[in-house]
C-alpha cells in the first residue's frame, strides 16, 4: 500500500512539473517578448517613459490619458465608497428586507457586458454632456456601476465579519449621531474591506477601455490603443508598465487578504 502511494506521489510530482513548465512558458513568453520588443534598437524607450516632462512633450495624448486614468481611478473609488458603504450599513441596520434587492442590483452589472452597457449609456451621457460637459472625468459615473459587484462583495464580507447592529446601537445609546456612527464606528472596523474594495476599483478602472473609447473620451487604455497606430514600441512599453502596476496593486491586495485571514 505504501509503495503504491509513494509511486503515485512521484508520478504526481513529475506531472506537476511538466504542467507548470509548459503553462509557465505560455504565460511568461508574451511578457518576455514585451521586454525584448521594447529594448530593440537604441533603447531609449524606457528612459523616456520615466521622464515625465519629456514624455508629455513627445506624446501629449499619452500623458493626458495617464493623468485622466489616475483621476478617474481616485474619483471612482471615492464615489463607490460614498455610495456603497452608507447604503450597505443602513440596509443592514434598518431595512434587512431590502438586502436581497440591493445585492441583486449590485451583482447585476456582472451579467451585462460593458459593450451592452455602453449602448444604453450613450443617451444618458448625452444628458451628462449637456449638464457637466464632455470631460473624461464624467466616466466616473459609469465606472462606479462597473465596479459595483466587486466592491459590494468586498464590503459586504467586511460587514458580515463584524456585529454592525450592536456597534451602532452602542454608539447611538451613547448619543452619537448617524454620521458619527458611520465615520467613527463602522468605517474603522471594516477598513480592510474598504481598502480591498478601493484597490479592486483602481485596478479595474486603470484597465477600462470599452466605455471610454465608445463614449469618445480618453484614458490610459484609449491612449495606448491610439499610440499603437503611430509608435508600436512606445505603446508596448506603456502596456508593460501598466501591467506591472496592476500586478503590484493586485499582489498587494492578495497578500493583504492572506494576512487578514491569518489574523482571524
Amino acid at each position: 500500500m505504501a509503495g503504491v502511494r509513494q509511486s503515485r506521489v512521484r508520478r504526481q510530482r513529475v506531472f506537476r512539473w511538466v504542467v507548470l513548465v509548459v503553462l509557465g512558458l505560455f504565460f511568461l513568453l508574451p511578457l518576455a517578448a514585451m521586454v525584448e520588443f521594447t529594448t530593440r534598437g537604441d533603447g531609449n524607450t524606457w528612459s523616456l517613459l520615466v521622464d515625465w516632462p519629456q514624455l508629455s512633450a513627445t506624446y501629449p495624448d499619452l500623458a493626458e490619458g495617464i493623468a485622466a486614468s489616475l483621476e478617474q481611478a481616485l474619483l471612482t473609488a471615492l464615489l463607490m465608497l460614498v455610495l456603497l458603504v452608507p447604503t450597505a450599513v443602513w440596509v443592514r441596520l434598518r431595512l434587512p428586507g431590502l438586502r436581497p434587492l440591493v445585492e441583486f442590483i449590485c451583482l447585476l452589472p456582472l451579467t451585462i457586458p460593458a459593450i451592452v452597457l455602453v449602448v444604453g449609456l450613450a443617451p444618458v451621457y448625452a444628458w451628462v454632456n449637456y449638464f457637466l460637459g464632455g470631460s473624461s472625468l464624467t466616466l466616473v459615473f459609469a465606472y462606479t456601476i462597473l465596479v459595483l459587484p466587486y466592491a459590494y462583495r468586498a464590503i459586504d464580507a467586511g460587514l458580515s465579519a463584524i456585529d454592525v447592529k450592536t456597534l451602532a446601537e452602542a454608539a447611538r445609546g451613547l448619543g452619537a449621531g448617524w454620521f458619527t456612527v458611520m465615520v467613527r464606528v463602522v468605517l474603522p472596523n471594516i477598513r480592510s474591506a474598504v481598502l480591498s474594495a478601493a484597490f479592486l476599483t483602481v485596478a479595474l478602472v486603470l484597465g477600462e477601455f470599452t466605455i471610454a473609447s465608445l463614449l469618445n473620451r480618453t484614458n490610459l487604455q484609449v491612449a495606448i490603443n491610439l499610440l499603437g497606430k503611430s509608435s508600436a514600441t512606445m505603446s508596448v512599453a506603456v502596456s508593460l508598465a501598466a501591467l506591472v502596476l496592476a500586478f503590484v496593486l493586485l499582489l498587494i491586495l492578495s497578500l493583504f487578504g492572506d494576512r487578514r485571514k491569518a489574523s482571524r
Partner: protein
Amino acid sequence: MTSIPTRVPRGRLRITHFRSLLGTVPFFAYVAIFLVIPTLVVAIGAFTGDGGFTFSNVTALGDAYVLDAFGRSILLSAVSALIGAVLGAVLAYVLVTAKPDGLLRRVVTAASGVLAQFGGVTLAFAFLATIGLSGFVTVFLRDHLGTDIYANGVWLFELPGLMLVYTYFQIPLMVIVFLPALDGIKPQWREATESLGGSTWHYWTRVAGPLLAPAFLGSALLLFANAFSAYATAAALVSQGSPIVPLQIRGALTSEVVLGQQNLGKAMALGMVVVVAVVMTLYALLQRRTAKWLG
C-alpha cells in the same frame, strides 16, 4: 427586528419606515440613472423604430451577417472556454496536490488573480510583441528555424488569433473558480474507494468525476460568458471588419452613415444579454448542485 415596533402606533411606524427608506434614496437614484435606464434603453430601443413599436430590429438579427457574427462569437467563446477550462482544471489539480500553504500554490493563485483581469488593449499589445508580424517569436522562428507561422495568412487578427489570445485570460480565471471545488474533494473518499478495492480509474470515473462534473461545467459556462462579453482585446486586435458581435455593435454605434443602425445595435446588445443571461442562469443552477457536495 425587536419587539419595539409592536408598541409603536401604526401611523408612527409608517413614518419611521418611510424615513428609513430615505436613507437608501441616493443609492437607488444612482443605479436608476446609470444602470436601470441604460438597460431599459437597450430593451426598449430594440423594439423601437422611426414610427414607434416595431419588430424590424429584432427580425434584422436574422440577417446573414448578424447571424454569422453571433455564430463566430459563440464559436470563439466556446473554444476558448473549453481550452481554458481543461488547461485551467489541470493547473488547479496540480496546485491541489502541492503543499496547501506552499509557495507554489500562493504564487500561482495570486498570479492567476492578476492574469484573469489582464485583458483589453494591453493583452492585445503583448501578443503583438510576441507573435505579431515583427514579434519576438515570429522573428525568432523565421531567422533560426526558417519557419513562417504566417505562411498561410496572418491568422492573429482573425478568429484563431482571438482564440489564442483569449486563452491567456481564460486559464487563470478557471484556476480561480475551479480551485474551491477541487479543495472540497476529501482524501477520505479516495481512501474509501481504495479500501473497497477500486483503482485510480474507478476513483476518477465513479467518484471524483461525477462529483466534479457540475463544478467543471459551471466554471466552463462562466468562462464562456466571460469570453462572450469581452470587447477590448478584440477591438484593439481587429481593426478591419467586424467578425464578432461586440465589434458589430461598435460598428453600429460609430457609423453615422446608415440611419436606423443605432437601434439594430440595441437589438444586438439585447441578443448578447439574452445569451449571457441564459448561460449565467445555467451556471447558478450548476453552482447550487456543486455546493451540495463540495461546498
